[in-house]
């Protein structure tokens, strides 16, 4: 089986400013990697490359063997949707539809039958422990609840093999941050997928299998 993520010799630059150079990373199945580094070191930029929202200046990225570099934007979008689940600091839920529909949204847009998509959403919500919120609107969810729903959305797809999270706990208090990290790493292990979690929080990093500092490049 292909590893969830392999990164080789990545270089990220904005104009003349080279942010990341010669960066490599290998994430195994069931493994959660914490991505740390000072503010402005390029964590978010790197994650954008991983999910194919932008292209690195050089280097190679593969998600479960599928190249994310040197392919068209459409191919990257397919991989992003099929293979990657994402969670961000702000949960970015759509206020116009309810919790279950939020989780099921990409399935719905792929033409899955409504009932099947909503059932998958409920399973995913159950896995992160918030099945009872399924029919609620998103406007009045607490921060922790919203993050869990966001995580359920990231994990809803059976085919996904990499979780990419950018400071998912930044807006949560200590207890909730720890709980969510446990939940993420537990799910990753259970489903045998990989995870890259950018964070400033040492307690989150402690719960991951490995910590990668973005400063010391060429870590492998």
């Amino acid at each position, binding site marked *: 089986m292909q590893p969830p993520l392999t990164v080789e010799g990545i270089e990220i630059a904005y104009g003349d400013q080279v942010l990341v150079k010669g960066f490599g990373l290998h994430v195994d199945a069931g493994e959660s990697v914490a991505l740390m580094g000072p503010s402005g070191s390029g964590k978010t930029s790197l994650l954008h490359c991983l999910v194919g929202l932008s292209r690195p200046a050089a280097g190679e990225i593969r998600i479960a063997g599928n190249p994310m570099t040197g392919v068209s*934007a459409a191919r990257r979008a397919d991989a992003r949707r099929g293979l990657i689940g994402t969670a961000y600091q702000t949960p970015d839920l*759509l206020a116009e539809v309810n919790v279950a529909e*939020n989780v099921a949204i990409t399935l*719905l847009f792929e033409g899955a039958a409504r009932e099947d998509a909503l059932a998958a959403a409920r399973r995913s919500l159950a896995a992160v422990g918030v099945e009872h919120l399924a029919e609620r609107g998103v*406007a009045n969810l607490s921060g922790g609840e919203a993050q869990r729903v966001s995580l359920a959305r990231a994990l809803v797809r059976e085919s996904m093999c990499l979780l990419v999270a950018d400071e998912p706990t930044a807006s949560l208090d200590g207890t909730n941050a720890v709980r969510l990290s446990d939940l993420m790493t537990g799910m990753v292990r259970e489903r045998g997928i990989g995870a890259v979690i950018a964070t400033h929080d040492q307690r989150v990093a402690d719960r991951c299998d490995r910590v990668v500092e973005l400063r010391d490049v060429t870590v492998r």
Partner: protein
Amino acid sequence: MNLAIWTVARRLALSTDRRQRWRQISIVAGALIATCAVLLAMSIIHLGLLTSDHTGARHPVVDSGESRMTVAVTGPILPDLSQFPVLWLDPAPGSEDDPAIIPPGLSALPAPGEAVLSPGLLARGYTAEDLGFAPSRAGTGLRHTIGDAGLASRSEGFVVARAPEGRSLGEHAIASSGFRGPGPRYPVETVLDVPAAGAAIVGAIWLLMLPALMVLTGSARAVSQVRTERAETLWRLGVRRRGIGLLVALETLVLATIGSALGVLLWGVAIAPRTHLPGIGASLLPGALDLPGLAVAAGVALVLLNATLAALWAKREPSRPRGGVSVLRVLPFAACLAVMTLAGWVPQLLRSDAGYDLGVTVLMVAGAGATITLPMAVPPLLGGMATVGRLLRQPTAWLAGRLVVARRSTLARPAVMAAVLVYLAGATTAMIAGLTENAPVSVLPSAQREVWVVTWADSRADDIDTAAERARQAGAETLAVTPTPAAEAGPEPSDGIVTTEDCAAARQFFGLDEQTMTCTNEEAAAPGLWFTVRFGSAENREGTISAAATGMLVSAPPGWTEADTLAVFSGLPVVNPWKVAGTSDFFSPVYDWLAGAMIAATGILAIGLVREIGDRVLVVVGERSRLLRAGLRDGESDWVYGLATLLPMAVALPLGYLSARIFAANGTGYAVTADSVDIVAMVAALVAGLTAAVVALTLWWQRRIDTGRGES
């Protein structure tokens, strides 16, 4: 605190932050357009009041008691002027020098047989002699024309003529006490080339003011992230709601004042001093479009108040999605449609002539009312969109439907602008079509001859011979008309009997071909020709030229105008030519004004529509990333937002179309409109297509920018 808020408001208004740019442009341009449109509307109302004032003053007072003169009115038609009134006066013996009978714009009564022409006639090259009169120097205007006090415009046709020596104005003339004092007045007007008060007020408010204020209302709500952030920060810092309201009001006021000031300047330079408006043929009286300072101030105050209130109202609207919008908000619009429908029935209901004017007024007021109430009616009707989206069983439609329902107030705005655009374009088109369809003059088309029937008053035995001889010398043929004896009168109306030698002569005289004019052994007939055309010998025809004749047919080669015909009858009183066959020279000068109003209304609303779509695009740019982060693709999110913008159109455009159709259908009875289904539908389709194209284009453009950024 107030000073602090003022400082923040001013800084915010004039901020150099690029995210505030759209709002700045929106409000300044919106206030500029609105100020110009409102002041132009007021100028046109001023013009209308002036018109009604001046025309009212030249209508003689009908008087049965103290009669100082008799009056009569004829309405000749000239090719470059359409129809214009000739006011014939005949002072009663002893009243010749009474100042009460001097019409406005004249310093004295013209001498017998003389006439004073309007400057509009003179400008088109006509002299008194051309129209069969002797020139008079009684006019107070330039080159002895009628002075401004007796004119609706400098370009209109109008003649004041005095009865020839020894002739009266006939038994149908009206007794009058002059041009001063109270009492009912005898109408003189035919077709004016400037609007009178009623039309000016309704037209200017409906087609200029309302669209402009609607666009301004949208502009004042223009999105600005900077302002939202600033207000939120202040709120968190503990500034009260009232204080934030004040901030919003002041910020809007600063921007709107800049726009308004530019608007006043533009109006003052480009409109107020003018005597011509672009696209409109009429030459106005000097100062007709100028306004007193107080009126200008009131117009500006209206614009600023509208902008400020709209901005405050927008702030009160929750930005977060919320539940129901009351269905009651549909009622005012429904009421306007109902009243419009009812307006068509007013004359039948009242069974009087007063019903006509009342009906037209009700129709116009309800028509204007529908313009204001239509925007209110759309958001509640969008509630059904969620169901439509779900029924389409299509995720894009489903999500777009949800977006529409959750944000119906904001998403309705571009649709509402488009709907009002369709409505006003449709309503004005129907009115313009009504002008041609309901033209009061019908002429049998002929390319060979120009044929008139001419009548006059106080006929003398040799009038016919004199006129016939003059016509012959000028190159025209004539036939005397005798009235149809009551015994011979059939079910069809008859304008009298004429006698020609034979069928060929009749066809030649009227310039009609065999298909149009059909003959029996005794008579010739043509559809639309109400004369009985008989065949008879020359002696027979001589015989008819007698005291029995009531009028005369004049048949002239092409190129003759009604002026040439008038000249033939020079010296006769109340000469009234009416074209029977040939080319029709009648046109409605109102056409210019309606077309101008339509272009102004649709132009203003089109700007508003583009601006509202611009607002949408800004919001979408902000929200697009929301959908992308939720896992949707570029194309999918474009479709969702495209549909969310277009779905409300599917509700609003039919409403606009329906309103235009109801207006058109109920105006036909008053000859105000023609119910032109095709044109209104075409306008609606055009607007819908245009909007879809603009939405598609902006999304595509936005995506190109996004992609470009992503690939950098």
